[in-house]
């Protein structure tokens, strides 16, 4: 479903990734500054690796060997960053419709799924952090993406808000067929959502883990030993 192979540098920091993922939620996990977001930006076409090959489904987004490099607007993505980045001059409804030129229907369904019906007329400034992030999610889905890229979508929220938004992400995973790439440094979120996990360190993708393996690998040492005994 998703293939990402890329190499590149940002200043003196070098990034290299080799990811092959199926449908469902693919998580990229690693500490801050490990290069997680950069890989996401490469998929979105907002960062250009020196060499690389990126494919989503049957669509080749980037193939440096054959000179293919689709512009971001043509990549059919849905992206949610840490900050909701809603358009401040547009109401919630207009924010949701911003990317809808790519599809005709589904507005009510998405509004229902994310419980946005009561806030459609509001301006972004008057939304809570959790509401704003739900609107950002809805806007991304309504752009009819082939893939959803979520870059630490819960990191800007406090624990309470996070627990308010997390169920919506689960609904999104269960009720849509859009593959999701989920970048986070939060172990709990990843265990709750991911089907497959890639760990990244110092700009390099290190391991490919199942949720069970991920759980074990991130447990404190003593517990791991007990488990294997």
């Amino acid at each position, binding site marked *: 479903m998703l293939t990402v192979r890329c190499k590149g540098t940002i200043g003196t920091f070098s990034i290299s990734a080799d990811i092959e993922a199926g449908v469902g939620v693919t998580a990229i996990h690693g500490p801050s500054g490990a290069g997680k977001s950069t890989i996401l930006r490469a998929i979105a076409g907002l960062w250009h690796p020196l060499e690389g090959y990126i494919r989503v489904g049957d669509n080749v987004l980037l193939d440096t060997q054959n000179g293919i490099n689709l512009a971001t607007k043509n990549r059919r993505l849905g992206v949610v960053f840490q900050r909701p980045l809603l358009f401040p001059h547009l109401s919630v409804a207009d924010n949701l419709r911003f*990317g809808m030129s790519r599809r005709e229907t589904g507005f009510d369904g998405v509004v229902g799924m994310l419980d946005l019906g009561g806030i459609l007329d509001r301006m972004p400034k008057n939304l809570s952090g959790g509401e704003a992030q739900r609107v950002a999610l809805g806007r991304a889905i309504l752009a009819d993406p082939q893939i959803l890229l979520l870059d630490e979508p819960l990191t800007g929220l406090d624990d309470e808000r996070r627990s308010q938004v997390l169920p919506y992400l689960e609904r999104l995973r269960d009720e849509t067929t859009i593959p999701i790439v989920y970048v986070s440094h939060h172990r709990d979120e990843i265990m709750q959502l991911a089907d497959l996990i890639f760990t990244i360190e110092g700009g390099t993708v290190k391991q490919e883990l199942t949720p069970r393996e991920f759980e074990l690998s991130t447990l404190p040492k003593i517990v791991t030993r007990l488990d294997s005994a």
Partner: protein
Amino acid sequence: MFEHLSDPTIWGIVILSLKVAFLAVLVALPLAIVMGKILAGPAFLGRSLLSAIVHLPLVLPPVVTGYALLIVFGRRGWIGSVLDDWGLGFTFSWVGAALAAGLMAFPLIVRPIRLAFETQSSDLNDMAKTLGAGSFKLFFKVALPLAWPGIIAGAVLGFAKALGEFGATITFVSNIPGETQTLSLAIYTLLQSPRGDGAALTLIAISIVLSFVAILASEWMTTSAQNRMER
């Protein structure tokens, strides 16, 4: 002073000035928006030069700007002579006064607009791109509405400047009552004549009121734009 308020020539001068300033801003504003966007955008060869040219009327003596206009757009000017053949001459007409006023106001209109574009977050721009927006949609649906307060500020500043322009106007289109004699020119002329003080004071009072209204209107437009974002 108030007896002059019923004098139709006074109001003729005011209306002419408003006409000149409106036309100047009307033509200069779209150009200033484009220029502001270009100057706020990614660096290119010659951007500093372009910026310097745009700001030149701000620092040149207005008389020099007026004379430059005469050379280019005058009856025997490079462009003026061609326009004159088509009957579109600028010289000694109120349209020429608007050209001089617009040129003088241009850098003042560009500046806040450029700043408004420069301070826009590139993240928001990236977000719009991921949602499928091409450069046309990016500009008209995101950049332009977000720059609205800067555009209003530029327009008001430009309007005030155009309303009060003196040096370039008198040099380029002279001081013809009823055609090119705007507020400043009329006040100057009246102050030169022995019994013009009263009428001059009336015009001065009107100038103050006009400037005040322009500033209040811009405050109101900026606040209402902000209120729309806070609903």
